[in-house]
């Protein structure tokens, strides 16, 4: 579990995160949602240790990140997998080399063991025949799947995804969402997803944290989000007529 208590983060005089307290549970897909500028990316980067914060604490299974030594932070980071918005695959490496990279850096496995593991995770994300392709030769959906494969290759305890569906067509988005949920369930990892995609919210949001202007405005799940009367959430999530209809139908069905 990742616990966040009273997290404050500023850039100069501008306070971006204003005392966020929440937790992200193991074996669940935890979504952070909110409008652009609400502080989602800053929050995610604080969780990842890419940004320092002024106040509050983040604890990974009880280990407070800011109190860890450099060596302990390195060990913790080896347990983190991250899927970046733009995939962030290394251009100069093939897909197989990209996936093998964390194993090379953090394990002492033999080459054949690493190759077996790479084959396994690439098969897991349905990319059996893409080993020798360069990232530039892969489609957006393939790149996202490679990024997921790279993120899970080292058996992480924590998986972070920054807008994993951005730039993907709806069908591929669902494939990626389902893949993330299956992996979360299968390996019982803590998955935190930063998303704008309302389909993802409805499909895989086992826990949803809604941020607004740097505050945690609401938290719940894909089931409770239909019933909430928080107007900030409903204005954001049900902004399109389609989702308004879906919500109305859901409420009518459950009355």
């Amino acid at each position, binding site marked *: 579990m990742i616990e966040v208590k009273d997290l404050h983060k500023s850039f100069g005089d501008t306070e971006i995160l204003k005392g966020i307290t929440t937790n992200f549970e193991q074996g669940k897909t935890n979504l952070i949602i909110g409008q652009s500028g609400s502080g989602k990316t800053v929050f995610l980067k604080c969780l990842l*240790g890419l940004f320092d914060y002024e106040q509050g604490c983040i604890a990974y299974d009880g280990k407070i990140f800011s109190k860890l030594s450099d060596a302990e932070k*390195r060990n913790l*980071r080896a347990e983190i997998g991250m899927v*970046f*918005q733009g995939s962030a695959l*290394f*251009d100069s490496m093939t897909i197989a080399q990209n996936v093998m990279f964390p194993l090379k*850096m953090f394990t002492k496995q033999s080459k054949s063991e690493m190759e077996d593991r790479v084959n396994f995770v690439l098969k897991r994300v349905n990319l059996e025949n893409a080993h020798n392709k360069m990232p530039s030769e892969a489609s957006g959906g393939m790149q996202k799947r490679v990024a997921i494969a790279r993120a899970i290759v080292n058996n992480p305890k924590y998986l972070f995804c920054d807008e994993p569906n951005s730039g993907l067509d709806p069908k591929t988005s669902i494939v990626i969402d389902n893949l993330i949920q299956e992996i979360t369930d299968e390996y019982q990892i803590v998955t935190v997803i930063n998303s704008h995609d309302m389909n993802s919210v409805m499909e895989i949001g086992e826990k949803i944290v809604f941020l607004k202007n740097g505050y945690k405005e609401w938290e719940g799940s894909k089931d409770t989000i239909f019933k909430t009367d928080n107007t900030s959430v409903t204005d954001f999530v049900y902004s399109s007529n389609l989702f308004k209809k879906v919500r109305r139908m859901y409420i009518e069905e459950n009355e």
Partner: protein
Amino acid sequence: MKTLILKDIDDLVIGSLGIVAFISFFVGGVITIQTALNIDNPLIPKYLIGFATRQSIILEFAPTFTSIIMAGKVGSFITSSIGTMRVTEQIDALEVMGINSLNYLVFPKTVALMLYPFVIAIGMFLGILGGIAAGVFGGFTSLEDYISGIQTDFIPFHVSYAFIKTFVFAFVLATIPSFYGYYMKGGALEVGKASTTSFVWTSVVIIILNYLLTQMLLS
């Protein structure tokens, strides 16, 4: 790390041999021709053509001006490749994995460029060879006079001075472009701007260090 160093040696050092060889050979030829054309006094011995070419190539052209050319080629490559990694979050990916990205990206380039004096040595040799080709085949001097000229008043420390400068410039070539690439912010347009800025500052620092090193080592 070993693989990265070997890759950077290939990209930065071996990949520069062609352009350095080409430029050195022809600039050596031009120096010889211009020196020959400016010696119109019959009392000045012809061997001075070889002497002047050697001094120009070893003392200044090979170490300093080749380094400025390399600031354009190698420096821009380093800035744009690291800058692109910054823009596309590849550096963040390294950091999240717990890898010291600065060390991972800059250290291999710095080590690889410690072989840069090897490129300059080839540049010196080809510059003088270009001088022979242009001087002898162009009819500006004889082979004997040219050979005699490049042996006249030879001071071995001048070669050491050139290589000391080259080592310092190699460090500059690795670090300043890396700095501009690593700390850049923005998108693709800023990568281009960072490359240009890095070239300008690398050149400025090389010129200033050239002056200071010359003052310290030769005066």
